[in-house]
């Protein structure tokens, strides 16, 4: 059997910048911020009063009865996967035993869990919804998408905190590569804008507290960055075996060249300042793709706007890419979307696919003074043209626990 290649044939998203891919990408290229003050009273309990909520509520995109038995993270998964499936040409006649789903979430149905705990305390056990468990389980988003599409090749949910979304795309890539499936709907979602997870992140001092200027709070690589901004939403990519996509005349965006995975073995939450885990993941990803550092022209960074993380990542990128880092346009789109945790690696993969399609690296906003410790070439304020011809780009994602995932995307 010849080597199976994996391509992207569909995209979907619901993000703080738009209810679909087109509106989100347009806002990204325009350098808009999706971060706003929260309107809930509970914000006063917290040192942080803002977050990046989705631009379009799922209530505007799906039926009420369907919504009430779905956690918000599951709603995002269905909204984004429906768009992606349609974008892929709705290949409903595929053999369902060759169709898979891999959709991740970092935290799962945490809002359901906490709401139902309130119900239990107020109304007793009879007041707890029978939908509680299917709504709170972290595999719920993948399972619901799998059910809707009747996927039978396997439905999976890798969980690795903020690397989850990228790990899901990588897992989907492997499913096709290893001949377990011909099409896999992959991505990541998160719905954790709630006082408890926010209080937890705030207790770690991980969140920005720039309450007087929310839209400028997420500022990766800026000298005065003070933490990340919690976002919600998700992204979905339809991955497909190349010959399969060609045979049905599908629109092909680009190819997934490969992936690189590693773990730090260093600390539960802090990045390894040495960055050796990230470097190894980049090395593995390039080797897995048959590419060298010379081929890479763009990178969508993890860059969450935390003081330690951004510099550790930038140092690792510089070491892994060497002098070739000079021709890599680095974008930190979390400056606009906030940090979607388990959805981050997925929407950032969507952004890379769009960047390769439009040949435009998205901007990084809110850098007033570039941190002098950052030695990579950051795209600031406005999009940057990418070269013509064959090009490749990287998406790196890291998660609490020391998980490192690097995905490689190639023009086709």
């Amino acid at each position, binding site marked *: 059997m010849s080597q199976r290649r994996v391509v992207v044939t569909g995209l979907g998203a619901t993000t703080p910048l738009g209810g679909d891919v087109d509106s989100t990408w347009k806002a990204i290229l325009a350098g808009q911020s999706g971060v706003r003050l929260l309107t809930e009273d509970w914000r006063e309990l917290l040192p942080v009063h803002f977050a990046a909520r989705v631009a379009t509520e799922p209530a505007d995109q799906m039926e009420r009865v369907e919504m*009430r*038995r779905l956690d918000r993270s599951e709603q995002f998964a269905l909204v984004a996967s429906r768009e992606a499936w349609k974008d892929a040409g709705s290949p409903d006649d595929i053999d369902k035993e060759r169709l898979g789903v891999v959709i991740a979430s970092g935290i799962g149905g945490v809002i359901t869990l906490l709401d139902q705990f309130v119900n239990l305390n107020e109304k007793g056990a009879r007041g707890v919804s029978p939908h509680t468990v299917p709504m709170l389980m972290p595999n719920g988003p993948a399972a619901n998408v799998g059910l809707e599409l009747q996927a039978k090749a396997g439905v999976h949910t890798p969980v690795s905190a903020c690397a989850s979304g990228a790990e899901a795309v990588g897992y989907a890539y492997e499913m096709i590569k290893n001949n377990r499936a011909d099409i896999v709907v992959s991505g990541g979602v998160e719905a954790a804008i709630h006082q408890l997870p926010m209080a937890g992140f705030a207790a770690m001092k991980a969140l920005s507290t720039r309450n007087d200027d929310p839209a400028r709070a997420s500022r990766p690589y800026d000298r005065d960055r003070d933490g990340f901004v919690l976002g919600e939403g998700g992204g979905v990519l339809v991955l497909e075996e190349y010959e399969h996509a060609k045979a049905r005349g599908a629109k092909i965006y680009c190819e997934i060249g490969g992936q690189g995975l590693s773990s730090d073995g260093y600390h539960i939450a802090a990045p390894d300042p040495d960055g050796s885990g990230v470097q190894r993941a980049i090395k593995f990803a390039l080797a897995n793709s048959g590419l060298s550092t010379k081929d890479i022209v763009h990178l969508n960074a993890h860059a969450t706007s935390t003081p330690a993380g951004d510099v550790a990542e930038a140092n690792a990128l510089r070491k892994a890419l060497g002098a070739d880092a000079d021709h890599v346009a680095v974008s930190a789109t979390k400056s606009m979307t906030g940090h979607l945790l388990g959805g981050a690696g997925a929407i950032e993969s969507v952004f890379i696919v769009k960047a390769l399609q439009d040949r435009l690296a998205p901007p990084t906003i809110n850098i007033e003074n570039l941190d002098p410790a950052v030695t990579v070439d950051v795209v600031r304020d406005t999009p940057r043209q990418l070269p013509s011809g064959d090009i490749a780009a990287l998406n790196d994602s890291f998660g609490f626990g020391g998980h490192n995932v690097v995905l490689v995307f190639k023009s086709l």
Partner: protein
Amino acid sequence: MALSPADVLAGIKEIVEEVAGIPAASIELDKNFTDDLEVDSLSMVEVVVACEERFGVKIPDEKVTDLATVGDAVNFIVNAAA
């Protein structure tokens, strides 16, 4: 407190429409919850709990399996409230 069958039917229609999204107009006494109205087992739990709250009755778990049709539920609730 005595409940009229008509009042109970009207209440069940509202509950089933709310929980399962089935138009109230299609909910009649002879309809089977599972086969005709496609109320799944989890949604049936919601319907039962909502009926208990609304009509102030207890519907024990072992009785729920006997409530095959909307009419069965109306009769049970009317008798339980009598």
